């Protein structure tokens, strides 16, 4: 794998083909992970991958093609395929190879020195042993996973723009499987970062969550006040994040089309998109088209300030790109996506929020969001599990009920948010976050 070795021949091919505007996007990742089972390392994997995407403008249309095969011969084929594809594009999106922003943000990335095979294995075993030591009810199937990944991105184009960035992600996951009173349950806890404190926290959390599910009962159908715990609220935000895409709105696929400047959510709702969140390993100063990224309040006190745009979708409505033209991988087309996308925390602690609800349901698990949520309509109907809450206190575990509603109504009916925002794990540069969130009178289908 050597980008530098083929870079010159790719640029030469582009020039040979008479292309005036083109862009080369290179992404290279290497990662390792270790996983345990029955107190041993059961699997260890290492990965090196990467490739080049080539985009060019032919007759006013954008063509693209990508490859993992980094040979001079393949570079020739890559340029030819991109040109051929451009000739078949009918979209009237403005095709732009970006000349560059005036200024790019300085990043403050955390340092995680790379761990070698032995260190990773040890860390995974430590986590596994910590989980096992948590409870006498832990059984086989319990596992610990440790991953580290680093990615280098290089973007160069015919305007002379040259950008590059390095992203490193490390994380640990604990899956606790317990057997108690003739019932098996499992729970999963995942955090980015490495460290002894994290090992302890993950083991505790996964085990406690698994045990708490034992003996869960069912609940009568009806209307209930509900708190989605932060991790679940951020998953709901993730499932519906495409409604904030300017491209989706332009195509009539988001009901937020034409709503910029209008009130779309409760006063307490502020939704932030931050590409350079302090302490995060997945910060970036530029997007997949080379546009500088910046922090914005997408919703501020309930008012939709802006949707998210890439160059083409912004141009359609006479705006500037918001720096949200991302690429999931080198082979993905540019698409609109957020960065650290999170609901700002309110003033209450998690316990105070529970107290303010009084009676209701605390939801700690949502399943099949990818299938049960429709971003075009906003409707969702999702299998859930959690706890019954009475007098502001968490009581018995409950399971096998669905919570149904509509995302656009839900953001209007948020009554309060806790202060502590919980973030998920990064997918590319996208990380979702939310605090515990209280919503009154949601439809619940149980027994």
């Amino acid at each position: 794998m050597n980008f530098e070795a083929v870079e010159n021949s790719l640029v030469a091919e582009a020039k040979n083909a008479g292309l005036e505007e083109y862009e080369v996007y290179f992404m290279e990742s290497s990662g390792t992970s270790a996983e345990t089972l029955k107190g041993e390392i059961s699997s260890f994997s290492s990965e090196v991958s990467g490739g080049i995407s080539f985009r060019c403008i032919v007759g006013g249309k954008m063509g693209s093609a990508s490859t993992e095969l980094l040979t001079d011969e393949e570079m020739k084929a890559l340029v030819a395929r991109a040109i051929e594809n451009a000739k078949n594009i009918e979209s009237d999106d403005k095709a732009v190879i970006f000349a560059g922003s005036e200024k790019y943000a300085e990043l403050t990335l955390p340092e995680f020195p790379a761990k070698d095979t032995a260190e990773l294995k040890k860390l995974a075993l430590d986590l596994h042993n910590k989980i096992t030591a948590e409870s006498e009810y832990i059984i086989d199937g319990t596992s610990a996973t440790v991953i580290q990944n680093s990615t280098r991105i290089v973007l160069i184009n015919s305007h002379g723009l040259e950008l590059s960035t390095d992203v490193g992600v490390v994380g640990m996951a604990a899956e606790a499987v317990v057997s108690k009173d003739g019932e098996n349950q499992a729970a999963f806890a995942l955090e980015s970062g490495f460290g002894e404190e994290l090992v302890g926290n993950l083991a505790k959390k996964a085990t406690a969550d698994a045990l708490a599910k034992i003996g869960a009962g069912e609940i009568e159908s009806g209307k209930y006040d509900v708190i989605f715990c932060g991790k679940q609220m951020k998953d709901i935000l993730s499932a519906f994040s495409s409604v904030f895409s300017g491209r989706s709105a332009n195509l009539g696929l988001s009901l937020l089309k034409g709503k910029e400047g209008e009130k779309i959510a409760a006063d307490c709702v502020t939704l932030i998109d931050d590409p350079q969140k302090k302490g995060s390993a997945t910060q970036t100063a530029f997007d997949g088209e080379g546009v500088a990224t910046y922090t914005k309040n997408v919703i501020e006190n309930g008012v939709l300030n802006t949707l998210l745009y890439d160059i083409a979708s912004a141009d359609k409505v006479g705006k500037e790109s918001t720096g949200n033209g991302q690429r999931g991988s080198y082979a993905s087309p540019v698409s609109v996506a957020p960065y650290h996308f999170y609901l700002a925390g309110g003033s209450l602690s998690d316990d105070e929020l529970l107290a303010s609800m009084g009676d209701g349901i605390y939801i700690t698990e949502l399943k099949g969001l990818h299938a049960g949520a429709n971003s075009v309509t906003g409707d969702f109907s999702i299998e859930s599990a959690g706890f019954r809450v009475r007098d502001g206190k968490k009581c018995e575990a409950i399971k096998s009920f669905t919570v149904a509603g509509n995302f656009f109504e839900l953001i209007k009916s948020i009554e309060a948010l806790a202060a502590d925002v919980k973030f998920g794990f990064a997918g590319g540069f996208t990380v979702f976050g939310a605090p515990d969130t209280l919503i009154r009178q949601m439809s619940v289908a149980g027994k």
Partner: protein
Amino acid sequence: MFKKELLEEMLGVAMSTGGDFAEVFGEHTRSNLIMFVDGKIDRINDSVLSGVGVRVFLGQRTVYASTSDISREGLLRCARSAADALAEGNAPISICLNRKNITDIHPVKINPVTANIGNKTDILKSACFAAKEHSELISQVQGNLSCVEHEILVANSEGLLVGDSHTRTRIAVSAVASDNGENQSGSASPGRGMGLEMFDFISPVEVGKSAAKTALVNLRAGYCEAGQMTVAIENGFGGVIFHEACGHSLEATSVGIGMSEMCGKLGQKVANEKVTAIDDGTIPGAWGSVNIDDEGNPTQRNVLIENGILKGYMVDRLGSRRLGMAMTGNSRRQSYSYEPTSRMTNTFIANGPDKNEDIIASIEYGLYAKQMGGGSVNPLTGAFNFSVNEGYMIRNGKICEPVRGASLIGTGSKIIQDIDMVGQNLDTAQGMCGSSSGSVPTDVGQPLIRVKKITVGGR
């Protein structure tokens, strides 16, 4: 793809730290995705995936290394890093590979990747325009045509060297109907393990119309009532219920580590006696079919449940070591970046004894789930959920008004007991199934079935 001698050297290096089995998986995949939106061909995504994965076993432990660097140095480095991850040492062993030829039971007539782009855009446009022109209420149509040619090679320390090519083609149309500031959607997405000859018997126009019809039905539908009721689930994608509720629990991936509610139940009655379920990777040209699996074993027809009795699991090499059972040709992976594991191919409930009209007529009050959406399952507990994309209430044995927003939730072990009527119109539908070894094409299927009681989530 690679010279035999180089593969032998890689396997020797991979085994050099004491592994008892090593395997090299090579892949060269060309894919071409044409996307349509807003009345126009919008984007064409064209990619080449190329790389190698090396796996080494020692008992029930595995290590895996993969690389997209297929230079000689890159390949040997990959084999070395797998060996080093297993243990210390350096005693390469000598491996002698024998090439095995296979019979291609899924010959491709028109290679979809190299076919003329203009022909492909015409097919896609005819489907999308058919959806758009179906009604004035159809406000947006998105579509794509996906063509993949996936060449693989498997070499292992037992001397096996085998290669295959899997081709697949799929068209997907999603239509949005709008009225009074409200959106509803419908979709259709048939695919086959074939080239463009798939369109000799699947009409793109009908695919487009079908997506538009579902969107229109949902636009005039009220919300589904919540509660427990009898549900009739239609054929085709209705089979996702078995895939999610039961199929995943029969994969050695979960059975082999005791994480399945189907553990230790071979020979026992696990389902209603009307239920026979099969996983068959050999159906010519089917979406989930392949000649050989990703460990180089021929796929086969595996009877999972026969007349309610559990007959077998889907077993890969690691699962075979864990369970002490034979491999079943079910080892699959999305790409060389993934370590393979046991997965479904074409999985379906076979036709049963009941007439379809009797099934509907038998329901006094319930839900007719005409088209199912996706879902997910926890293999440990069997808890599942599915969304219903197109549904109708049944009253007094008749299909009545459409309803939307419904989902079905329950547990796998219970629902397969509760399938108390099985009809006779078996059909399959296509999906991409996600699991630890990535996303792989799988067919789901069944005839119309009746579930006597299940929780319906509505509002």
